[in-house]
């Protein structure tokens, strides 16, 4: 692998390059140090030169695909562009964040290249050939996975598994490429985006998540959790029971058949802590549980617990946080 390039494909939104993409940049840097490879970035779009420049401050080389047909994300055009560049440059590793988009085009790219894909990795070990760690069986076990004769090796990393820090110290080159793509390459077109989380951030990017369970007793009571989330600048989540009862849409569900999250702070309100829920949040840095039932399993994994009625605790907690922020 030594001397070859290792690429991160950077995802962005209206608000700029995504946090998960910066984490992927960090992962690529770390891998490069260990494997003696050259880190580089790839970005695809139209009129996003400023993002390419931002990346060039972190990595030595940025491949920037620019074309009007890339102004909206599409798996087919992404695969087409990347396939030809990979065939030409022969990188050792391709890495992207395991976001909904990453999960969309990366497996297609891997199939097109006939290369191995290890998705949703949480870390790697570089001794004795590089191997990757990922959760299996809904977080109940961790698997170590290796590539066997795959060139390149393709990896996606789970958001929030790598810390990121922008240095801004590199003065990398930007190679602008105008790809040969056509309208007829596009099989799926985005018509509209419906945001369900309002002004709050998505679960996968939030530093703080305030989550409610059956103990919330009804949809109307989630206002309370929204208020707590807002004073903390966080997102709102829910257990399966809440979603199955129709109190919140599935987008909010955390756990084995919902989203897997790993925030700095997870506040579980009225959640008993079924194994399927714990599978979705037990890698949070700090877990707080508020529940009336002292025997709720959530207390077994919580860093801090308050055994009390959440409808009494949360309003006081909101006031205390507001007070502490003033000091």
């Amino acid at each position, binding site marked *: 692998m030594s001397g070859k390039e290792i690429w991160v494909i950077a995802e962005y939104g209206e608000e700029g390059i995504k946090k998960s993409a910066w984490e992927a940049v960090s992962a690529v840097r770390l891998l490069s140090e260990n494997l003696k490879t050259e880190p580089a970035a790839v970005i695809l779009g139209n009129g996003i030169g400023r993002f390419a420049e931002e990346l060039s401050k972190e990595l030595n080389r940025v491949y920037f695909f620019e074309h009007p047909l890339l102004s909206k994300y599409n798996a087919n055009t992404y695969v087409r562009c990347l396939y030809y560049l990979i065939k030409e440059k022969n990188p050792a590793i391709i890495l992207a964040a395991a976001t*909904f988009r990453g*999960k969309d*085009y990366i497996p297609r790219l891997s199939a097109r290249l006939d290369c*191995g*894909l290890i998705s*949703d990795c949480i870390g790697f070990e570089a001794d004795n050939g590089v191997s990757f760690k990922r959760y299996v069986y809904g977080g109940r076990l961790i698997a170590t996975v*290796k590539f066997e004769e795959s060139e390149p090796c393709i990896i996606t990393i789970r958001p929030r598994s790598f810390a990121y820090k922008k240095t801004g110290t590199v003065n990398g080159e930007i190679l602008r490429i105008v790809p040969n793509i056509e309208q007829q390459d596009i099989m799926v*077109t985005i018509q509209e985006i419906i945001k*369900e989380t309002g002004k709050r951030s998505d679960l996968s990017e939030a530093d703080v998540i305030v989550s409610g369970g059956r103990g919330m007793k009804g949809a109307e009571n989630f206002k309370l959790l929204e208020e707590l989330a807002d004073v903390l600048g966080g997102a709102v989540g829910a257990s399966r029971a809440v979603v199955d009862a129709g109190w919140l849409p599935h987008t909010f569900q955390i756990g084995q058949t919902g989203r897997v999250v790993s925030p700095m702070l997870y506040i579980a309100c009225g959640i008993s802590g079924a*194994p399927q829920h714990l599978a979705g949040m037990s890698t949070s840095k700090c877990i707080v549980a508020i529940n009336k039932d002292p025997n709720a399993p959530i207390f077994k994994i919580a860093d801090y617990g308050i055994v009390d009625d959440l409808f009494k605790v949360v309003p006081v907690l909101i006031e205390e946080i507001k007070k502490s922020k003033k000091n």
Partner: protein
Amino acid sequence: MKIIVCVKEVPDTAIALKIKGDSPEIETENIPWVINPYDEYAMEEALRLKEKFGGDITVITFGQKRAENILRNCIALGADRVLRINDESIKNRDGLVTSKILAKVIKDIGYDIILCGKESVDYGYAQTGQMIAEFLQISCVLAIKKLDVSPLNKEAICHREIEGGLEVVKCNLPAVFTAQKGLNTPRYASLSGIMKAKKTKIETLEPDAWGFKPKIRITNLSYPPKRQEGKIIKGTLPDTAEELVKNLKEARLI
């Protein structure tokens, strides 16, 4: 309309799993196996499409003989044909091999719509549907929560999940759709369906001579580190809330 559904058997999500010695495998004796929950939504959507547009449903699984149970359940629900690709002779198969073989089998059967779960709850690579679509060079829409098919225009409009919400997308048919929770509410099998399923012979395919090699391999399984049990903040409000905030502030979490 030719509808294909890909299903997989997985260990019941509610049970504790044991690693078999120091092998990279789990103990599979005496554990309950179920259909992958996301595949149930795929199967239900197939039944609804058939009810609306007519056609037939072929359900395919890649697995050992035990996996016939989930296929029988699909017959009971209304599948027209079920097929098991026998994997007893394939020791190491990764998603790429699985998808290649599935794509080959699906191509031979013929297809308008292919439905899969958005991921399996065992390994959770979330890749099979997308890879099948690439091998067949057709559309793929991931993690759908709503599907409106227009066979006349050979297109479909669906809602797919993204971070923070949904995308409304239009795609050409044929296509692969991977089912997310929220797409529908799966039905139960009828008694007559269950009786019929008992008598149905399950077709088996032997893929061992096809010679595809896996590109990734699991070398080890381990248990995740256990979280330390934390502390219960004793006392009454507002002291408990105040102490919690103090602790969180000290830890620089708020």
